[in-house]
């Protein structure tokens, strides 16, 4: 009997040896006369256990990890192919506490299905969302997405259904659906994992968007740092065309929609939606002033839906399970689930998808298990390079849009990067300015020049004469204000976020006295 063994083909798993483990299992199993079929699945997002090998048994899939090539012989001796116990064993994957405590909606199939196989996707509920959508009118689909409360997961948190409505109402013979897969925020990797682990779901979500707004062409703009995601999407698009899931008369409905992948070229600003449009048009990725809204005049001047990978990949679940089911999850105006990406100096990093309402402490301590180094947590950066650093005594904050905003922080794309007490926050503030100087598109002065000045001023604070420090700090605060108020886009506009958070919470790292009023637990303001 053939035993199915899963070894992730996710680029994270590959970066720690999953290909070699695959080869070793194939070679050694065959040398023992065992018949195995190896599936390269996506990752479950438990990166501290990668490469995580799973074996299909009558009871379910049994997990082992982290597996190295040197472990393979011993694992086979112990009865890996029968799901037998071993020191690296974790029992049934579905029973692993870290996963059991999550609510995987957007990531329901990642790590489960074979991303190369449309059959595997369909067998796990794929295409149910599109089928449901095609049975409704396009405007009812827009309404369902609006009712679900789904907000854009790319960073700005704009309600997805409202954006779609604008495009649906626009009159044009040509409209586009563009997926923003630039995922430039350091500390984030969920878009990559989804495209590598469950690419058909993204295609399905984009097709639903196309139906809802009346578009027949779309693009997925993927950053060049993700070659595996590019290959995975291209392979899935080709397979989808073959099955009639893309092209003309999709599922016999009369709907026509096709997709193309475009690859970025190493520019963070191309994640900003209008810069992405310029890049998709083959030009320099320069930010466009708004108005016009891309929803009305976007790609090649046509009405365009632009959504993040996670937003689009959530849509099929909203349609197949109903907007009420999604809307029932979450808190306040943060509905549904959030895919957190736990990274940096953390013992158990990876994907944590739960309904909104989790606190930062639950995420970092309970899921993350504290720091990887074993030292105390000192700072957590939430929301990517433009996000604030929160101090260890502010971890009680709930990770939803509104509460984070009240703490001067933002959710962004859901990246959470943990630092221990060896971090030099002065350097982190400097890096925020350095990154902005490096990645600014150059269109407006507050950002282009301000960030360069910011680096200089922070350098003077850090190494200049102490008696000049107070003056330089005042200068830095002015500069932050200028960038916030005078920048055309959020690159220059939000770079002050991490800098100000260091001034507020870690002033001693800039050689200045802590503020007089102490920071109360749970109040990072």
């Amino acid at each position: 009997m053939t035993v199915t063994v899963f070894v992730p083909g996710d680029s994270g798993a590959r970066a720690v040896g999953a290909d070699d483990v695959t080869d070793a299992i194939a070679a050694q199993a065959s040398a023992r006369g065992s018949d195995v079929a190896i599936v390269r699945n996506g990752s479950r997002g438990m990166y501290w256990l990668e490469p995580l090998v799973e074996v299909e048994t009558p009871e379910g899939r049994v997990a082992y990890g982290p597996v190295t090539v040197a472990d393979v012989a011993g694992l086979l001796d112990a009865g890996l192919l029968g799901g037998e116990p071993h020191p690296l064993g974790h029992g049934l994957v579905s029973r692993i506490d870290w996963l059991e405590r999550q609510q995987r909606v957007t990531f329901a199939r990642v790590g489960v299905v074979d991303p190369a196989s449309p059959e595997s996707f369909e067998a796990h509920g794929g295409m149910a969302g599109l089928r449901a959508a095609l049975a409704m009118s396009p405007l009812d689909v827009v309404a369902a997405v609006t009712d679900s409360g789904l907000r854009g997961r790319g960073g700005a948190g704009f309600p997805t259904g409202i954006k779609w409505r604008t495009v649906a109402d626009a009159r044009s013979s040509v409209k586009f659906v563009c997926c923003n897969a630039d995922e430039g925020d350091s500390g984030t990797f969920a878009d990559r994992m989804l495209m590598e682990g469950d690419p058909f779901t993204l295609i399905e979500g984009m097709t639903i968007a196309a139906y809802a707004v009346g578009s027949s062409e779309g693009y997925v703009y993927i950053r060049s740092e993700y070659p595996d995601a590019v290959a995975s999407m291209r392979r899935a698009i080709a397979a989808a065309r073959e099955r009639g899931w893309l092209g003309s008369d999709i599922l016999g409905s009369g709907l026509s929609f096709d997709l193309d992948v475009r690859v970025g070229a190493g520019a963070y600003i191309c994640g900003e939606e209008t810069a992405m449009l310029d890049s998709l048009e083959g030009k320099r990725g320069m930010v466009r002033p708004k108005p016009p809204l891309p929803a009305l005049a976007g790609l090649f001047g046509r009405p365009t839906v632009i959504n993040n990978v996670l937003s689009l990949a959530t849509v099929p679940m909203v349609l197949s399970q109903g907007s009420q089911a999604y809307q029932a999850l979450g808190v306040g105006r943060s509905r549904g689930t959030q895919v957190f990406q736990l990274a940096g100096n953390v013992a158990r990093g990876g994907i944590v998808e739960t309904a909104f309402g989790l606190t930062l402490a639950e995420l970092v301590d309970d899921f993350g298990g504290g720091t990887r180094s074993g030292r105390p947590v000192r700072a957590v950066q939430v929301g990517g390079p433009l996000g604030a650093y929160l101090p260890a005594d502010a971890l009680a904050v709930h990770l939803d849009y509104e509460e984070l905003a009240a703490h001067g922080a933002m959710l962004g794309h859901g990246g959470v990067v943990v630092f221990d007490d060896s971090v030099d926050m002065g350097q982190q503030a400097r890096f925020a300015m350095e990154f902005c100087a490096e990645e600014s598109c150059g269109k407006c002065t507050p950002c282009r020049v301000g960030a360069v000045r910011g680096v200089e001023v922070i350098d003077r604070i850090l190494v200049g004469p102490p008696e000049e420090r107070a003056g330089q700090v005042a200068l830095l605060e002015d500069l932050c204000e200028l960038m916030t108020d005078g920048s055309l886009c959020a690159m220059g506009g939000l770079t002050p976020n991490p800098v100000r958070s260091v001034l507020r919470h870690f002033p001693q790292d800039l050689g200045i006295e802590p503020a007089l009023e102490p920071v109360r637990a749970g109040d990072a303001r």
Partner: protein
Amino acid sequence: MPTEWSIEAGARVIADHAGVRGPLLPVLHALQHEFGYVDAAAIPLVAKRLNVSRADVHGVLTFYSDLRTAPSGARSIAVCRGEACQAVGGHALADHAQERLGVRFGETTADGSTTLDQVFCLGLCALSPAVTVDGRARGRVDEATFDALVAADATVSPSADRGVGA
């Protein structure tokens, strides 16, 4: 291995990709893919074929940090400088990499063997610090594993084209 640049080969690559919508960036990508960099002599060819100005071509070429105007070393190494990597020794690894290879980021070693670059996030932030060697990602890299990667003959990477996308 990249093809040796020539006007004829360049013109062929340009023609192959000129038909796509918004062709300038895809054409430059294709040239770099084929020849390892975009030769200065390609600029007027691209401009003519796509009916844009040389300044437009130059503008795109210099905007994107991936696009090179000179050949890189035989091997390319990129070190992640993003925050998640910084949190687990990324600053030290960045310094170490430059010291070990005797070049700064963006430079090629004197013997032409290795180009060292910095990159801001590889999406391996739960496996940090991360680097790539000839486009192949590596996670949990410390100074010792970095040295081992440098010492290894990176032209022999049997499983370079595998995984989900293969």
